[in-house]
């Protein structure tokens, strides 16, 4: 078996800078193919770092099974993490800094929030002009039940000072080279929200390593990057954390940006809540379908808002009909939807889905372009062939 050091020794042939050598990665060394145990069938955007996307047909259930839940890593997952040794420190602008073990954390009152987690860059591949970054299409999104103590309960124990205005999360991601660490912060109001958690469980089971074992932040309705994995430090700050992943990363311009245009970094704000969006799970783009009735399925979500309706078009947007929304609902969770369509005749069709939310937001024809490709939410469409 090759360790990462062996890898460096062999590949480097003396050319790799010693400053970049990192500890061995046991999981990477074990994986000698495209196998990622427990994640079969996912789209492999990257293995090292691990970035996995759900194919559209996986986005078809109220709760996304963990094997079908997307994985977004900016850097290496922790190479070794012992639950017995793990600690969560709470400090900064608090009266009583503290450090919690997993056992202590598990004794706190537990809450469950069903939340749709979406990577800010989901759909980046559809932006024109194209943009650098992981070329996510539809599936850097999933819906799961997250369980753990409220962040507010932990912060109240520590006693947030008047000066505490933002809450910083640090995870145990292993940072290569001189890459800035993945550290971000959220405003104190969101941190104290009764639905913001330090989650230890996902769909009723302890978090697995790809999803932040043993604990992660869960900031409902917000971009996935807010929900720091492998959480090890919570620090209350007087102001927003200053670091690459808060600025210039994960920001949007305060001004409209023309496609291909540039942004003044000082005239921006952090990306927080998700957009209104729906995607078509089935049929797949390019599919051939048969039968008198074609079942069109998908999911729709709106961050901190509620989905009000999803409309479906089967004639490339010339006319729209309401889809039927699934019964299950929760404040920050997606709605499943379906539409039974009787094609008038065999042929080529463009099927489209358009969501509307409780804030009056409607999925646009063209998503707002921005230089990082965040929050893509254009009306989803698939082209299908109906056989006679």
């Amino acid at each position, binding site marked *: 078996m090759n360790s990462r050091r062996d890898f460096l020794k062999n*590949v480097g042939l003396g050319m790799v800078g010693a400053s970049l050598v990192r500890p061995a990665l046991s999981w990477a060394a074990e*994986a000698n*193919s495209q*196998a990622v145990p427990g994640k*079969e069938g996912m789209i492999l955007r990257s*293995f*090292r770092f691990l970035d996995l996307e759900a194919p559209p047909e996986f986005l078809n259930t109220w709760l996304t099974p963990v094997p079908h839940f997307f994985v977004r890593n900016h850097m290496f997952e922790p190479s070794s993490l012992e639950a017995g040794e793990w600690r969560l420190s709470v400090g900064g602008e608090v009266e009583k800094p503290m450090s919690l073990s997993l056992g202590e954390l598990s004794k706190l009152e537990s809450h469950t929030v069903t939340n749709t987690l979406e990577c800010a860059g989901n759909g980046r591949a559809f932006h024109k*002009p194209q*943009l650098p970054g992981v*070329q996510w299409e539809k599936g850097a999104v999933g819906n799961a039940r997250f369980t753990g103590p409220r962040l507010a309960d932990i912060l109240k124990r520590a006693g947030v000072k008047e000066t505490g205005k933002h809450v910083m999360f640090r995870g145990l991601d292993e940072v290569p080279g001189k890459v800035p660490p993945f550290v971000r912060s959220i405003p104190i109001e969101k941190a104290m929200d009764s639905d913001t958690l330090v989650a230890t469980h996902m769909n009723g089971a302890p978090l697995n390593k790809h999803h932040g074992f043993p604990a992660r932040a869960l900031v409902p309705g917000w971009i996935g990057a807010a929900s720091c994995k492998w959480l090890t430090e919570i620090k209350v700050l007087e102001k927003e954390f200053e670091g690459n992943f808060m600025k210039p990363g994960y920001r949007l311009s305060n001004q409209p940006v023309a496609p291909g245009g540039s942004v003044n970094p000082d005239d921006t704000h952090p990306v927080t809540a998700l957009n209104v969006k729906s995607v078509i799970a089935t049929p797949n783009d390019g599919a051939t379908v048969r039968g008198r009735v074609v079942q069109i399925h998908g999911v729709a979500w709106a961050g901190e808002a509620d989905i009000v309706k999803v409309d479906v078009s089967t004639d490339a947007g010339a006319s729209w009909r309401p889809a039927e929304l699934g019964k299950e609902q929760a404040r920050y969770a997606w709605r499943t939807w379906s539409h039974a369509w009787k094609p008038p005749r065999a042929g080529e069709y463009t099927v489209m889905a358009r969501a509307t939310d409780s804030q009056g937001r409607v999925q646009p024809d063209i998503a707002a372009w921005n230089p990082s490709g965040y929050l893509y939410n254009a009306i989803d469409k698939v082209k299908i062939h109906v056989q006679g």
Partner: protein
Amino acid sequence: MFKGSGRAVLAFIVSVLLGTCALRAQSGGAPDLPAGAMQATARTACMECHESRIILQQRLSKAAWTKEVDKMIKWGAVVDPKDRDALIDYLSTNLSVDKAAEAASRVGK
């Protein structure tokens, strides 16, 4: 002397083969970077921290590749200053906006 050189050459070939195997093991069977004068430079500069897939899925202008390469140098990628421009040319020629999108693979069993 000849024998010694032969052993050195053999050792080099073996080390390259081992390196290739290790590279594939670490990268989950990721495809190689495009052939070209800067292929080896790109392998060592970029793939120390991440695999080829993340490079191969990009379709960027020369200006965008320049920003990416300079960001990565700032973040620790080891690129000889005399190779910087050629590396940018290599990436922006092989992975330009007019190239067809890279097909993504699925996680296997």
